[in-house]
């Protein structure tokens, strides 16, 4: 019932709009007659635009009214027709040649555009508010001091209150240490490899090589992290374990090394594409100046190009850092759950993101510290990455203004 009515209504709308658009147009002779007299009036105002927009608004109101009233009774359709009719009548009365229709219609469009740009602000606000709100609830149950500096993490709540350890303990230091170790492993692989790949792409590669290599690296960066996670568990972990065993080393299947190195491979294309952009942006004249003095291409790159691009490279590194800190699926699949405080990369460690996922998978109760602690962790994660992003953006901006 409702669908055919809406379709009918819309087609009537379109027909009337065509009619109005035609009526709104004037003969060339009329335009000529207007010329030389005034330009304040727009004789060919596309009234149709306003009619059309009003029609949509009123039609939507009509449809809403009909939703709230029953469609089964005859009242609904007639009411919507009546509302539309009133709308048309108002438009008819309102739209005289003196009305600056285009300005009104365009004002509506701009308002709509402006409203949609608010969504980005709302999203940030919603993230900050929801994280803060739930984290505050958590800190009412657990002191922030214990959370930030405690060294024992076992969030499992007892089912009954008389069980031992019923309160759980929320010292997040092992998680921070684990995250840091994972990040260091990943970055020590990704930063040099990414930077050198970018140097090759931007300084050495021929046009043809770039044409093929860039999409390859894009594919590498487009592979979902869940795939990297599976790759780590199913391929890298057994290989490393066997490799370690041949040296008499016990490499745990869920070791930090496995997850960290796979994460490093994942981050290579990010670093290389960001560095490629900044290295390519270094003006040619700087390079040619150095070449003209008889420097080898290695001396040009390490002595001129890289120093010139350094702010951009550093901000690429910072973005890589924040990416590594926030990476989830690889560590969820390939790293451990138990919160170990260790410096040995061959042992399993856990990270902030792993704990967030493990705490929130399954049922959640929004009054237990177990659930809320995930938000406290998310709060920390968000603010660390926020700081990193802001620093990186400022550096990029400074870099751009240098060569623009």
């Amino acid at each position, binding site marked *: 019932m409702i669908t055919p009515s809406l379709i009918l209504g819309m087609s009537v709308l379109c027909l009337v709009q065509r009619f109005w658009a035609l009526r709104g147009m004037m003969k060339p002779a009329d335009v000529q007659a207007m*010329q*030389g007299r005034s*330009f*304040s009036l*727009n004789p060919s105002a596309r009234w149709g635009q306003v009619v059309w927009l009003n029609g949509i608004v009123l039609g939507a109101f009509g449809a809403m009214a009909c939703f709230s009233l029953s469609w089964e009774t005859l009242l609904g359709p007639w009411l919507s027709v009546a509302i539309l009719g009133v709308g048309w009548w108002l438009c008819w009365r309102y739209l005289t040649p003196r009305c600056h229709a285009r300005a009104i219609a365009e004002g509506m469009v701009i308002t709509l555009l402006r409203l949609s740009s608010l969504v980005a602000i709302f999203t940030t606000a919603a993230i900050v508010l929801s994280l803060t709100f739930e984290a505050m609830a958590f800190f009412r149950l657990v002191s922030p001091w214990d959370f930030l500096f405690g060294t024992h993490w076992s969030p499992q709540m007892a089912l009954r209150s008389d069980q031992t350890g019923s309160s759980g303990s929320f010292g997040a230091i092992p998680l921070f240490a684990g995250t840091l170790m994972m990040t260091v492993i990943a970055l020590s692989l990704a930063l040099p490899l990414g930077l050198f790949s970018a140097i090759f792409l931007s300084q050495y590669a021929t046009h043809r090589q770039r044409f093929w290599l860039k999409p390859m690296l894009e594919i590498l960066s487009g592979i979902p992290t869940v795939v990297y996670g599976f790759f780590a568990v199913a391929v890298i972990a057994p290989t490393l374990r066997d490799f370690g065993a041949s040296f008499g080393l016990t490499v745990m299947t869920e070791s930090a090394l496995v997850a960290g190195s796979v994460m490093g491979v994942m981050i290579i294309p990010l670093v290389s594409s960001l560095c490629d952009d900044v290295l390519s942006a270094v003006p040619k004249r700087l390079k040619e100046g150095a070449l003209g003095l008889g420097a080898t291409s290695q001396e040009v790159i390490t002595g001129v190009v890289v120093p010139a691009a350094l702010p951009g490279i550093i901000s690429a590194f910072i973005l890589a850092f924040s990416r590594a800190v926030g990476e989830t699926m690889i560590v969820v699949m390939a790293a451990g759950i138990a919160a170990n405080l260790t410096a040995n990369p061959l042992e399993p460690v856990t990270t902030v993101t792993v704990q967030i996922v493990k705490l929130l998978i399954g049922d959640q109760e929004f009054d237990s510290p177990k659930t809320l602690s995930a938000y406290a962790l998310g709060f920390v994660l968000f603010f660390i990455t926020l700081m990193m992003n802001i620093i990186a953006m400022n550096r990029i901006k400074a870099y751009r203004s240098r060569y623009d």
Partner: protein
Amino acid sequence: MDKKMEAHAVSVFYGQTQALYDISLTIPARHVTALIGPSGCGKSTFLRCLNRMNDVVEDCVVRGSILLDGQNIYAPSVDTVMLRARVGMVFQKPNPFPKSIFDNVAYGPRIHGMAKTKADLEEIVVESLKRAGLWQEVKDRLHTEGTSLSGGQQQRLCIARSIAISPEVILMDEPCSALDPIATAKIEELIDDLKANYTIIIVTHSMQQAARVSQTTAFFHMGKMIEVGPTDVLFTNPKNERTQGYITGRFG
């Protein structure tokens, strides 16, 4: 001779820097007026004031008044859209829309609602292409991309596009600087034909061109208008020594 446009004490500022100083100029109707001068002298800036294209530039301020048929186009009640429908413009580099030749010419009549039926629209398009001297070359391929034409054809397409909305004044901003000599000759011929119906103001780098096409010439230098007069007088007997210097090629 009736005057079509008049500029009174026009000064233009881009932020802190002043680009034009107190320009006053009268533009006669159905006449070609040429603005000449070395680059950066403000002649293009002045041209863009005449249909308020400078409004697009942020922090550009225009002082003074410009009258079109006695009405100030900088009055607050003026709708720039209507103004630009009356004062058309052709740019330095041909800039056809990436649409078909037909759609390029039909765009203006469409947005201004000048054609009631499809036949009317077609008539306008054909007429404009004929006036721009492009009809013979494109009549068989009206629906190919406008960007596929040669540079000179593209520029004539842009002229056809701007005369399709039957403006009263056409501003031309160095319309031949991107063209070869043969295309330039065609455009100059076209300008000569168009002046029967339109008032044309042309900014040009080339003094020969100004001498060939225009009846009135104004010489700009460093943001000031140094001299204005009938073209033959200005070129043979300039009053100002800077004009003399420029036309004899001592600077430029």
